[in-house]
């Protein structure tokens, strides 16, 4: 998942579809994000490459919509509903995820274990 400037980023991704849950006046997804191009990437405990300024899932609430949909802690979010999340600020990411008129968000997430699984299946 290390990115080389100027080259397109390639990753093995998983599609996750989260149906937002209504809680009072808010629609919640049930996880927390960290990271962004305006944040400090060295403090990210989940990233492999400490210069990676992408959006990572830092917490997943138990029983929430995200957990039900299969989102795991430490996942890097690559796209939200088609919008790129690899080069956005933290606030932009929050806004993309919490649009009031969307009930479903479709994420493309990547994690280390996906890459490894693909490699193993290629070998065998």
């Amino acid at each position, binding site marked *: 998942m290390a990115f080389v400037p100027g080259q397109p980023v390639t990753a093995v991704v998983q599609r996750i579809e989260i149906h937002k849950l209504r809680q009072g006046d808010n629609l*919640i*997804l049930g*996880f*927390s*994000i*960290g990271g962004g191009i*305006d*944040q*400090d990437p060295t*403090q*990210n405990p989940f990233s492999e490459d400490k210069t990676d300024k992408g959006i990572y899932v*830092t*917490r997943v*609430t138990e029983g929430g919509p995200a957990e039900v949909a299969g989102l795991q802690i430490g996942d890097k979010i690559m796209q939200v509903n088609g919008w790129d999340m690899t080069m956005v600020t*933290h606030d932009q990411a*929050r806004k993309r*995820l*919490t649009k009031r008129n969307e009930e479903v968000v479709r994420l493309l997430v990547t994690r280390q274990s996906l890459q490894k699984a693909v490699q193993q299946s290629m070998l065998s």
Partner: protein
Amino acid sequence: MSAAMDTESTYSGYSHYSGHSKKAHRQGSRDRHKSPRSKDGSRSEKSVTIQTPPAEPLLGNDTSRAEEGQDDNWGETTTAITGTSEHSISQEDIARISKDLEDSVGLDCKRYLGLTVAAVLGLLVFLTPIAFILLPQILWRDDLEPCGTVCEGLFISVAFKLLILLIGTWALFFRQPKADLPRLFVFRALLLVLIFLFVFSYWLFYGVRILDLKDTNYQGIVQYAVSLVDALLFIHYLAIVLLELRQLQPMFTIKVVRSTDGESRYYSLGHLSIQRAALVVLENYYRDFTVYNPALLTASKSRAAKHMAGLKVYNVDGPGNNASGQSRAMIAAAARRRDSSHNELYYEEADHERRVKKRRARLVVAVEEAFTHIKRLQAEEQQKAPGEMMDPREAAQAIFPSMARALQKYLRTTRQQQYHSMESILQHLAFCITNNMTPKAFLERYLNPGPTLQYDRDRWFSKQWTLVSEEAVTSGLQDGVVFVLKCLDFSLVVNVKKIPFIKLSEEFIDPKCHKFVLRLQSETSV
């Protein structure tokens, strides 16, 4: 009979060596008389047999002499002193005597020869310009052209330049030599040769061109003399640069390690020859290194002895003398053996430290208390003194007994007792009282072992030095040169390293470019 022999185990007599020794009063040179018919062969290997001349023995030995002839068992009933210790003491005596003899006889000649040559040359050189000026006046005065103000001006300049040269030479060269170097000082010799050749060539020219032809141009002659003095001043400048200035800039760092206890220091030197570098090291040795104390080395020696004594090698396979195999087997066996000597060392050292600290605390308290008994009288009070007035020495003697015991115990524990006699302690106490020093200042001399210069000359253990070097001692210092300065009891190993070439570059920082930003790590729940 045997009881008498039991108590009379050693008695001193004159040996061959102590007759010549200057230190015949040393307590170490006691030798045993032994009857030539010693029964046990192995015992005679360990004991010293010295045939004394039939001179009178010192103490009342007649009874024991008579009994020696009758007592066959004297070997078993007398206490035996192992020959090794006696051997080593007498060897030391011999070494010291031979060195003393060397000292007194030969080497001063070399030094005085050099000095006289230099002095004669200097005098010759100084008188040469004067001779150049005066000789025409003396020899062919009437033929000379009159030479008025110009010549007089030149005379004045010659006079002042000679005066400056004289003062400069006195300042540079006429100093008490502080050391005796083994080989000659190359730069000085070169300079002397240069001066000699120079003056010789001037005299040659003068003799051939001027004296023989009786040149009448006096102004030219005087100008010739002035040029000689100018050139001599330039040679003096050259001497300053070569002898004094060149070695000021540090080029080498040398590490000096004392072989007995590993104490080390670093010094910076410029371009010097090895012998002059050795001189610098020795001058700094007396100031920087703590005094050599052989009593502190006994612990490690006893440990080493215990290591060696543990194993014995027996050769069961035959008479083959496999010496290297034996020693390797010993080393391997020693490595495998589980000895607890490290444990002993640790606890012994911890114990010793505790003891030293305790004694130190007692000493400090005793000295502080002793110092409170003394008060200095001001000048006005001296007229109307209440009690008897004492001078510093008496005051020291008055307060010394209260701290003497604690001080002596402390010195014994730190094994410094032979460096401080009671007289020296009293003197130091009087000195401290005179100069208004606090108890701590008085104790500073005893709590830490000081540099060698602080102690009495007899206790130095290091007066005669030998320079051991693989390269010629007049060659200059190079990177990686190692030489050793040996004295009788220990040696200083000196290692020379070149100061690395430093590449210094500059970087300009605009004071306005210091900017900072907060490190954010926010986590938002969605």
